[in-house]
């Protein structure tokens, strides 16, 4: 399928989904939908570096937070900017951060790269906690408008729509990469970096492209978050949950294909939302703490890594 056709189909599906939800007009559906789509964008962004290129990034929250805190800064400094513009700025800054991180750390391979990215998240969290302008440790309030611009209705619907459009863009890019010259270069790096160099692949440049794209997309996922939550502090923005989910979703869905993070986000994100609001606790007469979400993701991730390392996509792919 051509990329343009794929983009059209995806847009059509998204349009139908949005119109249907508007018609049902159940406000929780938009909240849950936003949560799942946010993880879809985050997971797909992570997968460009982690899945396609084979560099496992544990610093997910750093890029997510750069997007989120850019919005906080812009909300205070230039509140007249529309949210999509703030997102573009946040995404760009996160992409530049990706480029810089890549340049500093990509001479590290394997687990050493992962440790360095984890350190990046810790350093950034410390910086933000001590930066008074964005609220420091107290956190910052970002009061969203009551009604949505352009489409009317609740502001959450607008946020959902924006995340839906972002998902389309990110998925089209991810899918186009897979069978492109860049995609083959990424795969060569993932499989054997020395052999990739020997076959003419400019490994450093390609890794920088991957870290920038990946960082930018993760920043995009985080940028609308202050408006979604209304309040942002460093503890919740740098929550390990984001990093774990961004890794778990591609791993469970399958890292080799754009469909992997989609399936993973729908499954894991959906399950988490369902547990949060279902009556399961009453039925079973137990109380499920909110941390159970992490446990579930952890158990799923371990199960898949052992039983189906290619993820759900791998289970359905014909064996070559």
């Amino acid at each position: 399928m051509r990329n343009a056709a794929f983009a059209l189909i995806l847009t059509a599906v998204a349009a139908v989904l949005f119109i249907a939800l508007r018609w049902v007009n159940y406000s929780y559906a938009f909240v849950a939908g936003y949560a799942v789509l946010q993880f879809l964008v985050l997971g797909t962004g992570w997968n460009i570096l982690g899945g396609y290129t084979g560099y496992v990034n544990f610093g997910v929250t750093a890029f997510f937070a750069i997007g989120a805190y850019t919005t906080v800064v812009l909300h205070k400094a230039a509140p007249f900017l529309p949210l999509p513009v703030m997102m573009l700025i946040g995404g760009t800054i996160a992409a530049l951060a990706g480029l810089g991180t890549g340049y500093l750390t990509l001479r590290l391979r394997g687990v050493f790269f992962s440790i360095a990215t984890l350190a990046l998240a810790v350093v950034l969290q410390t910086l933000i906690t001590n930066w008074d302008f964005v609220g420091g440790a107290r956190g910052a309030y970002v009061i969203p408008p009551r009604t949505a611009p352009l489409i009317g209705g609740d502001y959450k619907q607008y946020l959902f729509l924006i995340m839906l459009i972002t998902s389309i863009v990110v998925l089209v890019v991810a899918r186009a990469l897979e069978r492109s010259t860049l995609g083959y270069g990424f795969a060569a790096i993932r499989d054997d970096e020395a052999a990739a160099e020997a076959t003419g692949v400019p490994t450093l440049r390609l890794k920088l492209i991957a870290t920038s794209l990946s960082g930018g997309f993760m920043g995009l996922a985080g940028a609308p978050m202050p408006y979604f939550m209304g309040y942002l502090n460093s503890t919740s923005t740098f929550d390990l949950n984001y990093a774990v989910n961004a890794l778990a979703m591609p791993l469970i869905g399958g890292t080799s294909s754009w469909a992997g993070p989609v399936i993973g986000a729908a499954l894991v994100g959906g399950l988490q939302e369902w547990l949060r609001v279902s009556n399961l606790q009453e039925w079973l007469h137990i109380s499920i703490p909110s941390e159970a979400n992490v446990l579930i993701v952890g158990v799923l991730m371990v199960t898949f890594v052992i039983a189906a390392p290619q993820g759900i996509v791998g289970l359905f792919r014909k064996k070559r």
Partner: protein
Amino acid sequence: MSTLLEVSGMGKRFGGFVALDLIDLNLPEGQRLGLIGPNGSGKSTFVNCVCGTLRNETGQVRFAGQRVDALSAHERTRLGMARSFQLPRPFASLSLAENLRVPILYAANTRAESRIAQAAIPARCQEMLSLVGLADKAERLPSDLTQIEMRKLELARAMASSPRLLIADESLAGLSHAEVDEILALLIRLNEQGITVIMIEHIMRAVLAFSQRLVVLVAGRKVADGDPKDVVRDPEVVRAYLGE
């Protein structure tokens, strides 16, 4: 014949161990060169320094008249140097055809004279695979191959970059008598098409059948260089291989 590869004063140390000691080598375009030496004599280090996988500490490398010391491995590949690895290093998650697509996209297509149109790439991959007898496995993954087939894939992938110089690092090890002849014939056929070939090999029968010129490395030094028939009778070479 013009000089394609010009190595002068190449030196490389690993800590206190001298792996290469002032190696000089001029390789005219179109020549078939055999490079032999006992284990640990520096053959693979030499290849790695020529191809840019390792950096030589002294001396210089010129390729097609251009200094390439400062270039990274992929830039040298793009200029027309290709190598196979001694231990096969296939791209494990890509099919055999896709393994060849990488050098076509990233090396052959960066030069105008070897550019292949997008639509013609699958046919080109197939052609390269059939040269080494792997055409019927084009859609398989490298993990389905035997060690010997992986060596053939290594060669095919090196050739897919449309090189001017092909360095085959022990491509024949472990192959049967008939397979050795098959690969030798292939290398000679490539050479007849104008590709300069350096063959690093332990199988003397193959080296002597293939080489127009033979270079011997012993403990990081070049001890002999010349007509294969003379070189194998050289006292120093005999001593290195057979002892006093």
